[in-house]
């Protein structure tokens, strides 16, 4: 009983710490990566006793700064919603990761522990649902600030999120059709098989179009450049214009957490999740017939490591996009969402259905 509770707690704690810490480190990655891309040195001043560690203390310094700043509230603001909005934003971004598996079932001391925070047989829909609820935080912030610029930002955010989510929902349908399950664990397991005896059946192979559509819509859902029209930090001012201190920090944090969630979803649906190519439960089995047996307690950490590595790689790619492309105009983003991503996702569903029928008939 106590052990079961401990295991459940451990699973949730692992996912929460992973998402939270990765989100925190991302503030550093964002600065350093942009600095490298723009031939600058980047943040490197925060130090503890002269120890700088490439500026890794900057997230810590940021947190202390934000927590000690004045928490200002406009006089005409809606008190309750103004205070609630940042929490709603962070909450849904944080819980969304719960049903994304970070490893295969771990077998220790006669127990079988699925390596994901929550086992849900509609896991993929759960992540999607939590992502779609996150927009309320932004809209509440925009409306409750009693500031027209904030209201505009909130409306832009709502319009953007809806057009992105339609495309996300439609593009994951193809993946669900191919692997025949709504459970993220089953989808990742399904990607462990080999096509023609050598090609891992990852989502990016079986659903290339859906991968591009999902990643584009996913980047839009994080509200970051090139889709940052809710805030448009360089010329418009966004939904959080009246926020200060840690409440402002929480909105920035929610964006980073959403980046982690989108990267986790991309990894699980299209990049094989925790699968390592040719690594089965009992060790490596290469296509040529060579094999390398490994104990279970080596295989599982390898798989968890592969998952973390893939998530970091996807985040790296999203940051590359963020520092490469200029911002879409509002109408361009809307057109991309409704006239580009959505029809293509529907086309992908039809094509996938036809191919699956043909495959089944052959």
């Amino acid at each position, binding site marked *: 009983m106590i052990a079961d509770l401990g295991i459940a707690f451990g699973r949730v704690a692992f996912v929460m710490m992973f998402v939270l810490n990765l989100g925190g480190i991302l503030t550093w990655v964002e600065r350093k990566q942009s600095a490298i891309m723009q031939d600058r040195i980047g943040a490197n001043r925060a130090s503890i006793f002269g120890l700088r560690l490439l500026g890794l203390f900057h997230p810590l310094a940021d947190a202390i700064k934000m927590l000690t700043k004045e928490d200002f509230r406009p006089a005409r603001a809606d008190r309750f919603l103004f205070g609630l909005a940042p929490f709603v934003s962070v909450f849904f971004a944080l819980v969304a990761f719960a049903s994304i598996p970070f490893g295969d079932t771990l077998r220790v001391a006669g127990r079988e522990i699925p390596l994901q925070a929550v086992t849900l047989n509609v896991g993929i829909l759960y992540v999607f649902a939590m992502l779609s609820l996150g927009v309320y935080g932004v809209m509440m912030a925009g409306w409750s600030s009693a500031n027209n610029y904030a209201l505009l930002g909130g409306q832009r955010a*709502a319009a953007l999120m809806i057009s992105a989510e339609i495309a996300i929902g439609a593009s994951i349908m193809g993946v669900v059709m191919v692997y025949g399950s709504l459970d993220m664990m089953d989808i990742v397991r399904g990607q462990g098989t080999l096509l023609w005896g050598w090609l891992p059946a990852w989502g990016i192979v079986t659903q290339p179009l859906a991968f591009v559509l999902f990643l584009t819509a996913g980047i839009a859902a994080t509200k970051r450049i090139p889709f940052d029209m809710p805030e448009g930090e360089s010329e418009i001012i966004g939904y959080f214009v009246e926020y200060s201190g840690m409440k402002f920090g929480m909105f920035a944090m929610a964006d980073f957490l959403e980046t982690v969630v989108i990267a986790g979803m991309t990894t699980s649906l299209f990049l094989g999740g925790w699968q390592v190519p040719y690594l089965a439960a009992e060790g490596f089995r290469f296509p040529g017939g060579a094999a390398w047996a490994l104990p279970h307690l080596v295989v599982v950490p390898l798989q968890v490591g592969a998952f973390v590595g893939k998530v970091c790689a996807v985040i790296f790619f999203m940051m590359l996009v963020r520092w490469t492309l200029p911002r879409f105009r509002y109408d361009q983003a809307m057109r991309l969402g409704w006239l580009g991503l959505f029809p293509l996702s529907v086309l992908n569903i039809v094509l996938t259905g036809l191919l699956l029928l043909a495959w089944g008939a052959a």
Partner: protein
Amino acid sequence: MARAAFFVLAALATGSALGLILKKNAIHGALFLVVNLGSIAVLYLMLGAEFLAAAQVIVYAGAIMVLFVFAIMVLIPGKEETGPDPRRAYRLLALPLGAALLLLLGGVVAGRLGAPAAAGAAGDAGALGRLLFTRYLFPFEVTSVLLLAAMVGVLLLARRGA
């Protein structure tokens, strides 16, 4: 444990429904409706209907209500601009109609109280899909025609305005 959770959720659902109709502020009312839809979704989850719960959150709380809140934010920007309801007379009709609906629903629920729970795994999306495309195919298709008609109507209205 489950019983306690049920009562908490039931209180939350009823309270948020009351908040929806009693709040003068349209945004607050809409947000109460979101809370209501969410607590109903958790009730579905407790009944083992995981797919239904997810669909409820995605479709109602995540999409329809976002559009509602969006529309309210566009149309009613400030709290002081919501004046008295110009169609006050219609509100008097709400009382008898609401009482009739309550009686009807109460009758249906009371008739089903002792009945055994419906068989089959409601949480399984496959079983649900099979039912939708076999036993309930006709209502399912009629609903889609209804939605299509509404969409065409909206397009017509939008065109006339332009």
